[in-house]
């Protein structure tokens, strides 16, 4: 259990999410894949700040503060992800109401 294993798992999760958000037609599944990518980024941030301490002045409290940098990042990312999923699902509901479909490919008014 070291840094590289966590980073590789984060990378695999991120690219599964990337692949899914590019290839799925269903809007809800695309949102789920974006959530997967958020989670991968959180995992990478926490692992980085757990194993790579950026700076220290020597006493224990500053070590903890610099370890916690990644966790604070993750808290903000989780908050933004919650806001994003609320807006995204509201958009899905409006899409279903107006187009009677959940497929992204059916929304193409700007194309013509």
């Amino acid at each position, binding site marked *: 259990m070291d840094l590289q294993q966590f980073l590789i798992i984060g990378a695999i999760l991120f690219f599964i999410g990337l692949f899914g958000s590019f290839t799925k037609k*269903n809007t809800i599944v695309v949102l789920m894949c974006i959530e997967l990518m958020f989670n991968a980024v959180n995992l990478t941030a926490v692992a980085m700040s757990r194993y790579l301490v950026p700076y220290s002045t020597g006493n224990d409290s500053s070590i903890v503060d610099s370890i916690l940098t990644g966790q604070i990042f993750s808290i903000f990312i989780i908050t933004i992800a919650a806001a994003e999923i609320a807006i995204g699902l509201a958009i899905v509901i409006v899409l279903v109401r107006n187009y009677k479909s959940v497929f992204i490919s059916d929304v193409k008014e700007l194309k013509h």
Partner: protein
Amino acid sequence: MENDTSLIIDIVFWIIAVSTIVSAIAVVALKDVFRSALFLVVTFIGIAGMFLLLRAEFLAMVQILLYVGAIAVLILFAVVLTRDVEQGSPFNRYLIPVLVISGLILAGVIFVITNTNWNVNSNNITSEQMTAAFVETSILGNIAELLIKKYVLAFEVVSVVLLSAVIGSLALVRKR
């Protein structure tokens, strides 16, 4: 004794890692949207286990509360609300090219990760010192202090973002 504990931690790590990645693949691969939402929950719980292994207990709790408790339930609600126009979850026509390109980039990223000389525990901080810092100080209190002192601007901005998200989603779904 020390070796036994690290062996058990390694086994737990691999179980969590494999189940997380398999359920993430199931999210993308399954045709039924409801089932892929349920596998998304499994992935979130696996990530929470990873946070526990990384000694981020507070984040593991937040992950369970927010992702499993709120976001997954919101997604399941959206799936159920769109049941009458449900058409499954097929792939579009870019399946093969995106698979090849993202696989290539993933291989490159893994190559870079394994070949970089990560400067683990630089600045003369030993792992014993780090463990001592974790044991002797209160992580939750430190997070709270950082949030309202060092990162207070980001904290306030994020609360404004949340408020605008609430108002925006209400305005979007309002019947007119």
